[in-house]
């Protein structure tokens, strides 16, 4: 069964135990419907859904017939009939019909009475007296029976109802007879004595008529076709009974049929009636009883022994006794038997219900006595513990080894002994294979057959325990990671602002270990960085980014600031609204310091290079200075000659001047080299910069017959000093133009391209179609004072490299495909904008 069905079954089980009416889940109805379907309540006497006049007609017919029968019987024996049927008919009708419908029935009875009496010629007084008594019988009888069986649906299978009927019949008889006698006496009081004298027999007759007729009416009204639910043997028996009764009837009615048979044969039906009561149910029994009674009366009326009136023609005592015995015993025994039958059926049903509920229970259920003996287990229990039912039943908890530690006060055995109530105890038990299982146990003490025991149920939570273990393990792993990493991990709910922070991480910033909740990292951010950090975060959330990286400074416990790098993950709910932020903050102070150091180191190495540069500068300046001095000396000597050669002197002066200019040139370039370039770093777009450089350089290129091509890719912003980079690019362009000067016009091509190669690198490429740079000189060209040009100091590329390196980038020269040199400048993308 699925989990839903299991739940449903549990609900059913509980409902069953509490005897609640159930709404059956469809999946279970097929399993349990037969046993759990509510038993059809003891059918109330149903008033058949027919038009109102039909019952009245029936009553009329029945009353009339009864009256005629009674009259017929009366003329033979005594003025009083031995069987007062009409009243009984009315009695039965009024019992079956609800009081609302009595009116038409009474009217019908009255009409039938007069109809019958009109034919018989009985004196009016007696007729009316009879009417009164009949009405009285019917009304009193039905009222008494209703009163006595109030609250219980009337059924002939109920002993209480049978007793009520007997009492009602007696009372009705007494009452009606009294009334009758009184009435007749009052009207014709001369025959009072006789009438009073016949009062007992009249009473008997009335009672017995009631007992014979009313059951028929009530039984057949309740169960109009009892043979529908009979199986084959029963039908056979019914047929047999019918045959026997029919034969009996024939034998009684036809005097010639059984001449030799003793009339005591009439007693034969008695066992048959009992048998009918046992096997065929109330309706056929009642009918048979009525039939036999009728036969007996007929026999008595026609002088058959033993019923023929013997001593005292007015007291058909034998007959009455016979009828009384028969009817009473049959009715009472029948009711008792029916009740017992029903009780057994109910018991059987309820037993089956319980057994099914017990055994089909999705939980493992067992019944165990207080000293640990197993009374019963269900299938699930057997499967859980691995003990077969036949093995478990009768064994003890100890012998089955269910408890992992029997001495434990929380073990099954201990709890049983204490008759404890358990609702949800997680515990461990051992199954037949010796495996330890995790279960939830519930226990309820109760009494079964007077013995104290407990209903113990188990639910296997092995899966849940496994899942919990896995969760704990993963939780532990998470904690290990948190402790091992020195990063701070935080989890902030954006709605409430409440934050969980890993204290281990914060500890490295000097904050004490404590609880993880409630600490907010935000006040620890450096005030100068705060605006930037919040702006970035809000922008990221608004845009719907999943991650957001920021660098900022975080205050340590001692007040100093650490450089940190934070990577935050924004968790959105189903509607895309940001709900939570989970972030990892890494201390990059060391890394920052290392970078600082590296920068200073590179600066220092630049200083060493500067030292070398200074030496080479000194040398460069030395040459012209040297020449100047020697020229001056030469001039002095020339002037000491007799006729100083003026032309030569002029040459000397010219040389001195040009040497001096050379020196100033050098000095200017050296200034350019040595100036501590103050760089203003800011984000700028490389393509825009190249555009502005091209605006300067393109006219020059055109003048020199060089074709310039550009191929600019989409680039993220770069962080650097725009002006310096501009100079670098211009330098490279001009170098390229110079390199193309000696190429034929057709082959003067200069290409400028940009690319965004890796995640955080931007490249500027300047390629010419000149002669290229020898592999051996690729490093040397970036050194100071290296030049192959007639003019020029050879400082451009070294300055370019210095600038680019200060940007954290690189510059190098490669072969251009197709001949020429290709200069590649690599710059770093602004870290704030990466992604």
């Amino acid at each position, binding site marked *: 069964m699925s989990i839903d069905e299991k739940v449903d079954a549990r609900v059913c089980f509980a409902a069953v135990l509490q005897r609640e009416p159930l709404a059956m889940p469809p999946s279970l109805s097929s399993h349990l419907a037969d046993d759990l379907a509510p038993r059809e309540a003891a059918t109330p006497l149903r008033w058949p859904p027919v038009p109102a006049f039909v019952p009245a007609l029936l009553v009329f017919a029945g009353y009339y017939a009864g009256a005629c029968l009674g009259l017929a019987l009366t003329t033979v024996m005594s003025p009083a009939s031995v069987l007062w049927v009409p009243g009984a008919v009315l009695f039965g009708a009024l019992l079956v019909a609800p009081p609302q419908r009595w009116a038409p029935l009474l009217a019908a009875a009255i009409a039938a009475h007069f109809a019958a009496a009109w034919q018989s010629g009985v004196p009016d007084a007696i007729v009316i007296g009879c009417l009164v008594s009949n009405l009285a019988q019917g009304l009193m009888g039905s009222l008494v029976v209703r009163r006595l069986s109030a609250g219980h649906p009337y059924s002939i299978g109920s002993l209480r109802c049978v007793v009520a009927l007997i009492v009602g019949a007696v009372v009705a008889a007494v009452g009606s007879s009294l009334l009758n006698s009184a009435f007749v006496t009052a009207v014709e009081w001369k025959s009072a004595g006789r009438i009073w004298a016949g009062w007992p027999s009249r009473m008997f007759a009335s009672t017995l008529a009631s007992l014979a007729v009313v059951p028929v009416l009530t039984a057949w009204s309740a169960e109009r076709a009892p043979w529908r639910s009979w199986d084959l043997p029963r039908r056979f028996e019914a047929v047999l009974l019918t045959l026997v009764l029919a034969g009996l009837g024939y034998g009684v009615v036809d005097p010639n049929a059984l001449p030799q048979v003793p009339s005591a044969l009439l007693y034969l039906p008695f066992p048959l009636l009992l048998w009918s009561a046992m096997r065929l149910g109330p309706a056929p029994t009642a009918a048979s009883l009525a039939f036999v009674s009728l036969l007996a009366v007929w026999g008595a009326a026609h002088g058959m022994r033993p019923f023929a009136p013997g001593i005292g023609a007015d007291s058909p005592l034998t007959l009455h006794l016979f009828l009384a015995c028969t009817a009473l015993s049959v009715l009472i025994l029948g009711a008792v038997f029916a009740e017992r039958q029903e009780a057994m059926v109910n018991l059987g049903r309820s037993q089956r219900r319980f057994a099914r509920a017990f055994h089909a229970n999705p939980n493992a259920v067992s019944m165990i006595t207080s000293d640990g003996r197993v009374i019963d287990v269900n299938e699930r229990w057997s499967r859980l513990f691995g003990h077969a039912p036949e093995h478990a039943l009768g064994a003890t908890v100890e012998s089955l080894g269910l408890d992992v530690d029997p001495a434990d006060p929380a073990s099954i055995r201990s709890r049983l002994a204490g008759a404890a109530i358990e609702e949800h105890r997680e515990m461990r038990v051992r199954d037949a294979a010796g495996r330890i299982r995790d279960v939830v146990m519930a226990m309820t003490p109760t009494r079964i057959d007077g013995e104290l025991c407990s209903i113990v149920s188990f639910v296997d939570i092995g899966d849940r325990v496994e899942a919990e273990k896995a969760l704990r393990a993963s939780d532990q792993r998470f904690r290990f990671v948190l402790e091992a990493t020195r990063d701070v991990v935080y989890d902030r709910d954006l709605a409430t602002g409440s934050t969980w922070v890993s204290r281990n991480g914060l500890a490295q910033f000097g904050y004490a270990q404590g609880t993880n909740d409630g600490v907010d990292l935000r006040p620890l951010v450096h005030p100068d960085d705060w605006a930037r950090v919040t702006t970035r975060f809000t922008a990221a959330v608004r845009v719907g980014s999943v991650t957001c990286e920021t660098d900022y400074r975080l205050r340590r416990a001692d007040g100093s600031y650490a450089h940190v790098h934070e990577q935050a993950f924004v968790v959105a709910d189903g509607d895309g609204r940001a709900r939570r932020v989970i972030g990892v903050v890494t201390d990059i102070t060391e890394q920052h310091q290392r970078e600082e150091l590296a920068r200073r180191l590179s600066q220092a190495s630049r200083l060493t290079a500067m030292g070398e540069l200074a*030496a080479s500068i000194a040398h460069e300046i030395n*040459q*012209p200075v040297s*020449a100047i*001095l*020697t020229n001056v*000396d030469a001039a002095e*000597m020339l002037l000491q000659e007799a006729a100083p050669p003026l032309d030569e002197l002029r040459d*000397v002066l010219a040389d001195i001047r040009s040497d001096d200019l050379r020196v100033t040139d050098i000095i200017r370039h050296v200034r350019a080299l040595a100036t501590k370039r103050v760089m203003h770093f800011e984000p700028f777009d490389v393509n825009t910069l190249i555009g502005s450089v091209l605006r300067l350089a393109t006219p020059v290129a055109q003048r020199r017959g060089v074709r310039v091509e550009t191929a600019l890719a989409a680039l993220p912003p770069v962080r650097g000093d725009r002006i310096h980079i501009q100079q670098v690019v211009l330098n490279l362009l001009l170098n390229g133009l110079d390199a193309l000067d000696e190429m034929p016009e057709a082959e003067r091509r200069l290409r400028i391209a940009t690319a965004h190669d890796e995640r955080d690198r931007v490249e500027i490429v300047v390629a010419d179609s000149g002669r290229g740079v020898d592999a051996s000189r690729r490093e040397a060209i970036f050194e100071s004072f290296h030049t192959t040009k007639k003019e020029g100091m050879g400082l451009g590329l070294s300055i370019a490299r210095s600038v680019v390196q200060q940007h954290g980038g690189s510059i190098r020269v490669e072969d251009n495909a197709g001949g020429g040199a290709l200069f590649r400048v690599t710059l770093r993308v602004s870290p704030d904008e990466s992604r």
Partner: protein
Amino acid sequence: MDEAKAVVHVVEDDDSVRTAVVRLLRTAGFQAQPYASAAEFLLVAGENAGGCMVLDVGLPGMSGIELHAALAKRRDCSVVFLTGRGDVQMSVRAMKDGAVDFLDKPVKRELLLDAVTRAVERDVANRERRGRATELRARYEQLTERERQVFRLVAEGRLNKQIADVVGASLRTVKSHRARVMEKMQATTAADLVRAADELNRLGLH
């Protein structure tokens, strides 16, 4: 010593400096020849060029020091070094290797002219010595084996009688040999012979 003024080869790669130095030397009366590199000097003047040299240390390709080393293998040369980078170590080594002087740029006129003068003198002296050596060698070549033997013995200071014993010739033969040696070696006294022998020894011929 026929050349009126010795040639001064000026090897300097910086144009201005070279022009100025050549001008100065010429004004001072020297015959200065400019070269822009060691290669140019070797190509134009050749390894056996006479005269002294003013060498810049920092030359493209073969440096001044290297050129001096290469030339010095062949014969004594007379070199004045000029340098823009004052390097004590370099200068000491150059001097040990026989340079006339090692000067820093910018160079004072007096220092330069003085050094060049000495270089020229050294060159002349070298040339003379070289001439003498050649003569001596030529003369020696003309000696016969016996005569060389006698020459050697006389240079050792042996008496004629001793020489006769050693050679195994008569006294008269020895005396006649001796006379012929004197004549060929153009020596007037025995002392001259001794000097000549020393000279020859030094040249590794004797």
